[in-house]
């Protein structure tokens, strides 16, 4: 088809003179992303101290409406972005996952602050989830405790950049442009402690092992700690040496304490100037390798990608057949 430039100018919309007789070419992804990145609606949702800085970012001095984000929605069904602004507790993660599931796709998660990113100052707490990424896929992490409004703005701009790079035709980097809805994140259960449904099998295996008279939830020490525990701690800490061989029968607490003792012993020996040969192999020892149960089923992105690929393959084989 021949392109008649004069025809193009005769639309129902007035076109400024300097733009007339121009043809601009862009990709659909680009223009689509341009629209999305400039109207990110965050969910009006504050968890802890970081939420106060989020409010400050929304207020007049920092004002993130400059980036198209002023429309904070209290309902997840109208929001594109979940700013996890604060400490995620075990009690609260249940509603958070529910809220996330209720957000329409495309949806993004920004972990604001140390707590949301990895537990922060409260990581060791018994009711604290050490990072929202244990449950939800996080797009941007903003460090800080709390991040300053400037840092949060920077994180939001980083998110916009990320959106710019996404393509609507491949479902490889984003799960939501495939066919059909993606699977909701399983909602954790508040049992004796919080239970991630994706870990049910692991817990069951452990419980069966315990029922057979084995250990329960006793983790092999990381190679590092083990090497340290096995150190021939001559005179520095005979206690640690005595504790080390019994590792199999110890409770996790005892085991960890033994490891700590051993570490102390190793340090003491080193400072005594005689542990150099003993420490050398330790330094070269590999990081805890082999099976890493704590990484077993955690990357949701990976899972979704695999599912998307499988669906694609199924479609392909269907159309062939």
């Amino acid at each position, binding site marked *: 088809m021949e392109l008649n430039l004069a025809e193009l100018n005769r639309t129902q919309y007035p076109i400024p003179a300097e733009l007339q007789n121009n043809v601009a070419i862009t990709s659909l992804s680009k223009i689509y992303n341009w629209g999305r990145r400039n109207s990110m609606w965050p969910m*009006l949702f504050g968890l*802890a*101290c970081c939420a*106060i*800085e989020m409010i*400050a970012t929304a*207020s007049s*001095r920092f004002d993130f409406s400059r980036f198209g984000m002023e429309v904070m929605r209290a309902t997840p069904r109208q929001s594109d972005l979940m700013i996890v602004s*604060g*400490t995620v*507790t075990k009690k*609260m993660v249940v509603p958070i996952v529910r809220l996330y599931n209720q957000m329409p796709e495309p949806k993004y998660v920004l972990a604001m602050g140390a707590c949301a990113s990895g537990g922060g*100052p*409260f*990581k*060791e*707490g*018994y*009711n*604290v*989830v*050490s990072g929202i990424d244990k449950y939800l896929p996080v797009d941007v992490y903003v460090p800080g*405790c709390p991040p*300053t409004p400037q840092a949060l703005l920077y994180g939001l701009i980083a998110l916009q950049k990320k959106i710019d790079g996404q393509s609507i035709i491949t479902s490889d980097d984003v799960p939501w442009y495939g066919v059909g809805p993606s699977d909701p994140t399983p909602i954790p*259960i*508040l*049992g*004796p*402690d919080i*239970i*991630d449904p994706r870990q049910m099998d*692991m*817990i069951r295996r*452990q*419980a069966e092992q*315990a029922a057979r008279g084995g250990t*329960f*939830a*006793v*983790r092999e020490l*990381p190679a*590092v*700690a083990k090497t340290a525990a096995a150190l021939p701690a001559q005179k520095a800490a005979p206690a640690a040496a005595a504790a080390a061989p019994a590792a199999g029968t110890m409770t*996790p607490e005892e085991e*960890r*304490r033994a490891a*700590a003792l051993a*570490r*102390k012993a*190793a340090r003491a020996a080193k400072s005594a100037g005689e542990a150099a040969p003993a*420490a050398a192999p*330790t*330094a070269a*020892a590999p*990081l*805890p390798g082999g099976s890493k*149960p*704590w990484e*077993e089923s*955690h990357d949701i992105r990976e899972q979704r990608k695999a599912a998307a690929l499988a669906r694609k393959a199924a479609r392909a084989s269907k159309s062939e057949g």
Partner: protein
Amino acid sequence: MVLTAPDPNKVGTIEDAIADLKAAFPNDVSDDKREGYGGVIVSADKLLEVASYIRDTLKFDYLSSATAVDYLGEGHHSNDHMEMVYHAYRTTGGSALVFKAQTDREKAELPSLVSVWRGADFQEREAWDLFGIRFKGHPNLKRILMWEGFYGHPMRKDWKEAFYESEHKPFDSRWPEGHVYRAEELNVFGSNVKYPSDIDLSRLTDKSESDLYTGFGLGVDMTHMTDENGIQTDELVVNMGPHHPSTHGVFRMVMRLDGETITHLEPVMGYLHRNHEKIGERNTYLHNIPFTDRLDYISSMGNNHGYVLAVEQLLAKGAKYTPPTYRTEVLRVLMVELSRIVNHLWAIGFWLNDLGAFFTPVLYFVQERERILDFFEAVAGSRMMCNYMRFGGVFADLPERIKSTMNLMNDRVRDFDTMQFLQEMINERIPRTIDELDEYLTNSDIVQSRSKGVGYLSAEDAINFSAAGPLLRGSGVAYDIRRADPYSIYPELDFDVAVQHEGDMYARYMVRLIEMRESVRILKQILPRLEYTKGESVTSSFAYSGKIPLGEAYGRVENGKGELGYYVVSAGDKKNTANPWRYHVRAPSFINLTPLGHMCRGTKVADVVAILGSIDIVLGETDR
């Protein structure tokens, strides 16, 4: 007029009361003779009578704090036991009558004091939840911070969290032999969870919700009613939160409604319970200062102040202790009063949000807050989490010059002389903002008609519910710790206690407004003091002292939201300790919620959010 502090050692005070108490209950009340401890120990079976006597005869009508301590092992003075510690005050002023009751660790049970002070309600539930002490006669003994069905009572000394490393900080190196490892790697499940080994996944039920709703008659036969027109109606249970824009964070209320009228309301919390106290007991004393910032994160300076006061009380039990210098006190009061203004601006702004003036007023107040935060940032290094005070001192003196913006129209950062900046802020800007607020809101018809007569709390109830801060003073009780049990340099400063007698939301608003003006009045007196103490030292040799003498201490301050108290116990078998044995926060936001259900009964749903706003809670402190 300069009021002087009531002398706690004068006749007619605590000693008299204790003597009186011992005379009345010769066999059941004895002195607490442990090193560094005070108060009396009451035998558990007489606790209820003794408490009534303390309230009615000795007139200690205000139960400030009730908390548990787990004494287990480590060469303690006596056998392992659980202890409840109560601090009671007179609303006419003076210091605390401390009484304790002990019980066995395994079968921990004590009589509930809810019938004497309803303010003990949530605090006893907390002790049950975290320490496993049963309270006989408590009307609603459920978990409060953790969920129903949780495994164990986590504040007990022998309960170890999943990421437990060692009893005390600082921990051993995270880099043993040059390799870092994370806490996750030590746990089979890769996160901080632990389960009983006999966990039965096939019969796993989430009890946390069902148990909550049974109290409301859900699942049971609902009461069927007939209204005056003969129409059949039902009561309806409505849940609000934990994700709700008007709950000021992750707070939740469950209510039973008859039409639009509340017949029963129960606050549900713990959604931000981040184990402040458990972590605090692993920390060194100094470690805890930045953690206190994160309690009431609107006014972190005030939180620091209460904690350092408590630890200074402990330090004073040692041989060589010098109190903070005068300039230190001046700086502390400066910071705390600025925080109070920030807190009240924030509280009023968000209360207006709840009334429906959505976000416009807040923007003005946040703007004023930004300027104060610039000052905090210049002095302490952080906008919100100031971490400014130290034992016996503060982190640093004021800098010569500070950077801030002129105003929001012109937000180029400029360099100011600190004193000039302060002068301009205290003499002009803050009073102007307060006047503006006063002019637009105080006489506004909408504010008045929405808030007058709503959310009523009588003076007797306010005292009995252990309400504190503007909630208490809005009900006509002129109780301000800065006057009633003075600390720092408040006795020599000239200010009035803000008090209103109506007991409704409007009265609380007025108290906040007046209190901001009084804060400005204090700040104006601080300015010359800042000038003439220039050059005085603000640090002390105790600031980073690792070792704290044995004993117990209760430091409390009048924070923006009410009485903030820290109960710190230093116990062990040595002369002094590096970590607190018990670290408890008496959080005003938490205890002020006790009367919420009472205040909301009979009001409309739309008023509930405003009543909650008028209490002014912050979840970091409520749930700790």
